[in-house]
């Protein structure tokens, strides 16, 4: 069942170049977690804004997203009122490479899954992590 993740599509025309700039800032395989700017997109709609994307796939349950947010907040020692949502990117939350591997390990422990390195590389947002978790949890139980 296809569904749209994230909030309503905004009309802010942030150029795609803005997304690329994310990479220039700091480099390490995990610090700027992913270099892939292309997002999965609807066939008929293309989003250019760097921080939002559409995804045609089964999206994670809100509880999963919330649990991921909690784990991320704890690892990065963010205050309770820091807004962390599915769209939050790890890099903009201040996660460095060590934080990212710790978050992955925390998620593995919390959900009883095992994340392969290649999959871990493709996670840039909280939503990515939640979707991957549900995929692995489903695969485990099927």
């Amino acid at each position, binding site marked *: 069942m296809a569904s749209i993740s994230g909030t309503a599509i905004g009309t802010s025309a942030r150029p795609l170049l803005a997304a690329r700039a994310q990479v220039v800032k700091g*480099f390490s395989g995990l610090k700027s977690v992913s270099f892939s700017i292309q997002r999965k997109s609807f066939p008929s709609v293309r989003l250019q804004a760097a921080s939002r994307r559409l995804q045609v796939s089964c999206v994670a349950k809100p509880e999963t997203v919330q649990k991921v947010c909690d784990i991320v907040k704890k690892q990065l020692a963010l205050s309770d009122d820091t807004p962390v949502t599915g769209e939050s990117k790890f890099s903009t939350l201040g996660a460095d490479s*060590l934080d990212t591997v710790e978050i992955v390990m925390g998620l593995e422990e919390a959900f009883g899954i095992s994340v392969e390195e290649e999959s871990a590389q493709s996670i840039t947002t909280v939503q990515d992590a939640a979707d991957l978790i549900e995929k692995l949890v489903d695969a485990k139980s099927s």
Partner: protein
Amino acid sequence: MSWLLRRNMLPLHSNSLARRPFASPLPLPPASLPSPRETHIWYVVPDELKDASLLYQYMELLSPCERQSVLRMNGERLQKGALLARALVRTTLARYTDGRLSPKSFKFQKNRFGKPEVEWDKYDLWAPPPLQFNISHTSTMIACGVTLDLPIGIDIEEKQRKTSNNILSLAHRYFSPVEVAYLKTLADPECRQSEFIRLWTLKEAYVKALGRGFSGTPFKDFTIRLEASNSKQVTGELKSDAPSIVVEAVDDPGILMNRWQFALFELNNSHYTAVCMERDVKNPADGENNSLKLEVWRTLPFVEDECVTETDAVKNIIR
């Protein structure tokens, strides 16, 4: 940092910038180029920045894309850090151009693996120096390493950094068997903690020097360790007395990847710092000492530079 955005739209208030004119920040003192075996490191301590108008000056150095990136960071502290990082890279590189290039004029691109590098313009009567750089930051320090034409990686971590996960769990997951075995020999938990962090910075620095990204150079595939003194390496060079840091592939133990040299030290009494630099084979060293040389400056761009190489700010160097 919405206050900065608002300021961009308002006429300048001269009283808030009384100390120096906005249009021309103090010129950066020129710096001599790094020599073949040298890494120059410039670091900034964000907490030393007390003058808010400086942030405005730094913001002016950035490209529009970089500014957007800074403003996307979550919260003022992270925004300030991101801003300082870009300002540090730009001002540092500008120092080596003998006043010909301003910090604002630099352009950046990614190599084919995604590593940021300078995109040099072509000039008729001047060849810009082939500088290579790499940056690393924590919330309390940002460091930029520069070499002349040699790939470099740098990583810093706070000495006090604690991990949420157990050290050996992390090591089992991400480090090579030799490295795990080494950490297991350390009985004292604090010692194990600090050795883990130091090894982490070395591995990060190596991956960043290679420039192929974490997935191109998985941590598990290589070992970094100390090599005993007085051993002959593959090139047949005799080592000096001190043990040295070496890297080898897990699949090819005993064959040291001599192309890369390291330095590990403490910076500002607060951070473990690792530097990895490609060995310069074009300029073979005379004598025995071909280890990586360091020159280190603490800086607050446009305010203060201090060479700290021979001071307590740079301690416990292992190469």
